[in-house]
């Protein structure tokens, strides 16, 4: 893999992302608004769950941050479909290797998703005042791990979906399932037993588990590292799936 070509494609992808700045702004504003709206509800849920000295932000901030991270499935996945719609996918293939094109396209999104999560945590904490028992800074490790996981899943969805409609539907479905069963909308302990059983098979669960451990239980770096490792393992699994199915010559359809 040529580093220079990788950087050229990444820079190019950044320009494409910036050519649609509205989405970037929305992906910060909407989660923040949701956190504000849901804070009180989350407080009740936390109190019911046996946690004291909470205001709801302790669940709302990490929950909606984790939930909206998976909004990127659609956004990033669409950039691959856009290449097909513009007729540029084949052109890129003639100038760079498939790996360079894919990694080059995902790299800027990795930075953006990581930054989004950090930003949401920081603003959420400052604006809503989380009462954290542990060090919130240790949670920063989760951001790149979750970003890798989201992008690997994006790659897998792009590999399996032939049309943009399929991508949209599957992305939205996964985002909602991950959020609800992963404990982003409500504490995992408040979910039905069957949901609690399958929750560990969902990446969001591990984000919420780490944030709960640090914020509500006061645990340290070890808990975060364990969850981050699981997220990276999810990413490896999604990437393997994607590579088994991905064909650079597959034509994608818009609609």
């Amino acid at each position, binding site marked *: 893999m040529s580093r220079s070509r990788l950087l*050229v494609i990444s820079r190019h992808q950044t320009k*494409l992302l910036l050519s649609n700045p509205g989405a970037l702004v929305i992906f910060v504003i909407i989660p923040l608004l949701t956190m504000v709206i849901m804070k009180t509800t989350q407080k009740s849920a936390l109190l019911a769950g046996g946690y004291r000295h909470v205001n709801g932000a302790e669940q709302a901030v990490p929950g909606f941050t984790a939930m909206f991270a998976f909004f990127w499935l659609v956004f990033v996945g669409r950039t691959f479909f856009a290449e097909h719609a513009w*007729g540029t996918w084949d052109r890129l293939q003639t*100038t760079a290797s498939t790996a360079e094109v894919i990694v080059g396209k995902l790299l800027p999104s990795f930075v953006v998703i990581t930054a989004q999560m950090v930003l949401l945590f920081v603003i959420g904490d400052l604006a809503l005042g989380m009462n954290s028992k542990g060090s919130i800074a240790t949670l920063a490790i989760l951001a790149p791990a979750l970003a890798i996981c989201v992008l690997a899943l994006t790659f897998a969805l792009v590999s399996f979906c032939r049309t943009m409609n399929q991508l949209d539907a599957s992305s939205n479905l996964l985002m909602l399932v991950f959020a609800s069963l992963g404990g982003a909308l409500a504490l995992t302990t408040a979910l039905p037993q069957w949901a609690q059983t399958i929750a560990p098979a969902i990446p969001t669960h591990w984000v919420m588990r780490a944030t709960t451990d640090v914020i509500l239980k006061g645990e340290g770096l070890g808990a975060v590292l364990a969850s981050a490792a699981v997220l990276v393992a999810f990413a490896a699994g999604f990437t393997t799936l994607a590579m088994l199915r991905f064909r650079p010559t597959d034509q994608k359809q818009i609609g």
Partner: protein
Amino acid sequence: MSAAVPPQASTGELLRVIAGPAAGADIPLGRDVAIGRAAEGPGSLGGDEELSRSHARVAMLPGGGYALEDLGSTNGTYLNGWRIPSSQLLSTGDRIQVGQTVLEVVLPPDPQRTVMRRRPVILAGAPDAEELRTPRSQATLYASGVRKSYGDLEVLKGVDLEVEPGEVAGLLGHNGAGKTTFVSCVAGLRRADSGTVLVNGVDATREPLKARRHLGIAPQDLGIYPTLTVRTNLALFGELGGLRGRELAKRVEEVGEALSLTPKFGAAAGTLSGGQQRRLHTGMAIVCKPPLLILDEPTVGADIRTRQEILDLVKALAAEGHAICYSTHYLPEIEQLGASVALLQGGQIIARGSIAELVSKFSSQVVELTFEGPAPELAMRGVEIAREDSLLRIKSTNAAETAAAALSQLGGHATRLRNIELVRPSLDSIYLTLTEQRYSSEEPGSGEEARGDGGLSVIARAALQNSGVNFRRPENLS
């Protein structure tokens, strides 16, 4: 050969001379061996006058195995028929040609050795690998026996095509003939099932990425980034091709100038007109000045100005020495470009050569005489005559001579002669003859008709200017 030595019993690794003045001799390996007319050691082949003094070297690799490299010889070193652009790993059975001498590589298997073996250059389905092929030229594109199937459908059935530096090769064929599949295989977008594709000497099947650095392609479908500016679109492909800084900026300016896009440099590509987008699309392929340029129907949907600018650009690039593979349905463009023709049908090249060669080889000329009243019967030898009411159609190899002979035989019917036309062959008539199609009023889709230039070939147009006789489009030439 001055020093043919028996093979070393210890390894059995050797080069066997199978052709040339030293045929039958063996050159032992087991160390570096220099090959040349005045080389030192067992590789000295003094009897071969076409060898350079120090021609090539077979170098022993640290981990075992051997690599062949040319030492700047005058006429090149060939491995399995292909001139080697760089050092190449050798496998047993490989054939090396240096001058008049052909050497076969003999490397007995060694279980102790873990050497990465190079795949054979000539793949299954290619011409018989046992017969060493001598490339006719230093073609920028050398395709041989390229086959490609999609499921049960065999789209390419062994395509051979060479395009020399400075040559525009017009790739013609009906929809579905395999043009796009072929250029996709050359560009590495599709992997050929078998066959060999060399781009500027680099084997595109073995080293597709390296080969791609020697080519630029403008695919059939438009491929631009509509949300980015014209300059950014051009610069992206310049950068991907390795251009940087001032060189990149200069090249982008040059391409913009050549395609009249400079005033639009700051505009988003999506806001351009269709013709401007088509020019930008082509410009993105040439910004790096690749040795091989593949243009797949570059003027589809283009207006007259755009078409002319693209054609002018192609001619200029060819004049600079670029090899251009130009796929099109518009036959006059081939004539305008002075391109050679490769006619693809049914997954094979069925005709290849210059327009003049094809005209001479595949087409005949027609004289048509129109009379007042029924056409008379004429007895002429060596021609094919058809009468149809008042029309007499005579097919021959020389329309002018046939016309003169016909006129001399008319006798009293000459007073009823109302018109005489010479229908000379054009590229489109050859195309249709070879592909077994005919013009008809129900099929107005030929490029020339669409373009309204009357469908006359360069030859016919020139003849028209010089002769004063009427020329018109051929109708039934076969």
